[in-house]
């Protein structure tokens, strides 16, 4: 190993200009792959954050809705039936719609997900500032941290929200009771209002005063024993009519466009990795082709294949590591310059997976050149064979 390492380090150092330039190419590939991963993570999180962080074990849909939140209606009777099933700890209604926070100062309206929940029941997010919702019909709201950052709203502030009602936009005044974290849904920051208020605000064909016990889209179910999730899912389906019950992951995977979006980004990432593989493989292949006479000479003087292969591999790993390091630092620097509204998330498993995959494609791409170097005949040194 030591002679292989010696040869790899000497060659890399004595040709540092060339190898540094190639490290920059790897850095650019890293930048591209990390950005696609961050975009995937950002868009994914923007779609699933609320459902992922939900304080419930199961979500209940109308069985004919085909797991579409917008198409699903769960009424009061169904929610009562869910509550009566043995093993259910609590049930909360959740209603989803969109609204706009107009802002003359910013010159740009902020689109938000308007989510109706029952105070104190599953579905209401935990607050990190202020307090939770208190009354089912109050003009009060919990806002996501991103809404607070963009609008400058703080606990106790009042703000207007706009929603189309009967063909005209209506404005509703709400008071900020609390601020919550990481609760995006449908790639929009969320505001949470009591379910009766939500029923009143949500876009409707006719102006509505809000029913006393409105139908919601889905019901969030908290179990006595979260470890019995599969059994409880079956029990709920068996005991409550016309419902479909899924866990949180299935719920967010069925949000509109989520799977297609993630598949698209994964495909882009796959192609970027493939391009990286070909570029890195191509570079080291050309580099090895240029060194064929030298490799032949090394073999002729008795250098074992093992040392030649290891030296190539170590060199590839060094150049790749350097490129990934530079690319990672550049990506981090660039990410700091992005405004918070852009769905780029440089954390989480997706980024770790992306970094790991780039670290793997380097040596993988270089394997061809290692194979080529192993096949070089020592006779080349004498002008024979080859």
């Amino acid at each position: 190993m030591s002679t292989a390492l010696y040869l790899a380090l000497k060659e890399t150092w004595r040709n540092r200009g060339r190898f540094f330039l190639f490290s920059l190419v790897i850095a650019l590939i890293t930048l591209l792959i990390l950005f696609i991963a961050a975009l995937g993570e950002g868009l994914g999180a923007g779609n699933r954050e609320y459902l992922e962080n939900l304080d419930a074990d199961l979500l209940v849909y109308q069985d004919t809705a085909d797991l579409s939140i917008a198409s699903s209606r769960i009424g009061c009777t169904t929610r009562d039936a869910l509550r009566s099933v043995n093993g259910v700890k609590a049930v909360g209604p959740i209603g989803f719609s969109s609204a706009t926070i107009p802002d003359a100062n910013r010159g740009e309206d902020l689109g938000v997900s308007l989510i109706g929940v029952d105070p104190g029941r599953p579905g209401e997010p935990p607050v990190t500032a202020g307090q939770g919702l208190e009354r089912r019909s109050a003009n009060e709201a919990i806002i996501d941290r991103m809404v607070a950052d963009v609008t400058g709203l703080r606990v106790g502030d009042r703000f207007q929200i706009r929603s189309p009602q009967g063909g005209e936009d209506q404005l509703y005044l709400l008071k900020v009771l609390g601020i919550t974290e990481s609760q995006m849904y449908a790639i929009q920051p969320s505001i949470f209002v009591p379910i009766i208020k939500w029923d009143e605000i949500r876009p409707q064909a006719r102006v509505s005063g809000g029913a006393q016990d409105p139908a919601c889209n889905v019901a969030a179910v908290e179990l006595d024993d979260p470890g019995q999730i599969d059994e409880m899912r079956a029990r709920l389906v068996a005991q409550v009519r016309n419902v479909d019950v899924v866990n949180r992951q299935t719920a967010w995977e069925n949000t509109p466009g989520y799977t297609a979006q993630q598949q698209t980004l994964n495909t882009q990432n796959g192609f970027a990795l493939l391009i990286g593989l070909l570029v890195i493989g191509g570079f080291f292949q050309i580099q090895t082709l240029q060194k064929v006479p030298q490799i032949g000479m090394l073999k002729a003087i008795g250098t074992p294949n093992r040392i030649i292969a290891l030296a190539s591999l170590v060199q590839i790993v060094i150049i790749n590591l350097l490129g990934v390091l530079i690319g990672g630092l550049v990506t981090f620097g660039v990410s700091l310059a992005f405004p918070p509204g852009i769905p780029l998330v440089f954390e989480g498993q997706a980024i770790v997976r992306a970094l790991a995959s780039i670290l793997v494609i380097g040596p993988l791409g270089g394997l061809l050149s290692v194979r080529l170097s192993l096949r070089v005949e020592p006779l080349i040194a004498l002008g024979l064979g080859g």
Partner: protein
Amino acid sequence: MSNNVATEARSVSKVYGSGANQVKAIDDVSFSVERGEFVALVGPSGSGKTTMLAMLAGLLQPSSGSVLIDGEDLLEMGDGRRAAFRRRKVGFTFQANNLVSFLTALENVELMLRLAGQYDRQHRKRARQLLEMLGLADRMHALPRELSGGQQQRVAIARSLINNPAVVLADEPTASLDTERAYQVVETMAHLVHEQGRAGIMVTHDLRMVEYTDRIIHLLDGRLEQIVTPDDDLSCLADPGSCQMISDDVFAVDSDQVAAAVS
């Protein structure tokens, strides 16, 4: 076989291709080289010089016959053992691409020590001494691209000798050098081979260089045409048609008989 024989080719033949496309590159060649003897392998292009050298180094398998270095038959070794054997017993100087481009002159010589597991203070000192002996004291830390062709060849000679090999092989070591540097390189090589008691075999097509050798092995169309000394009439080397064929019987026996035949 005399105890002083460092390497020996016994009825070596090499055939390329098969059937109608068969080409006999080397045809039943036998000779031996003793320690402290510097031999030239000469012949026109296509005569089989380099093929013969490759077989002497264990880089190429003879179709028949055997090659011995220090009494060990290269054919009986596996690839890995043969490579290790080459590291210990064979020193190499090539026509071109002699040095590792990213290592300095000293590092190129020391590489052989690393490969042989002898990279210690004593051997490193010897590497420096060899380079100094070859007039490269002030060029030890120069990269190959910073050295002239002659200097590169001298570094290659130092590398070929650093592990005290039994046999030093040189393939056209003067091909890319001007006359003055070519003489310097061959003279140095001959001097070190004689002084250190190695067996040196140099492939060359430059007949001016044979004056530093002890014997000249003349190949023609893959066959051993004759073995002469630099003091003999060398006109037939330049004009192979005028050479008298030597009986194969002479070379099928041991080195003493060979020596007797050429004297």
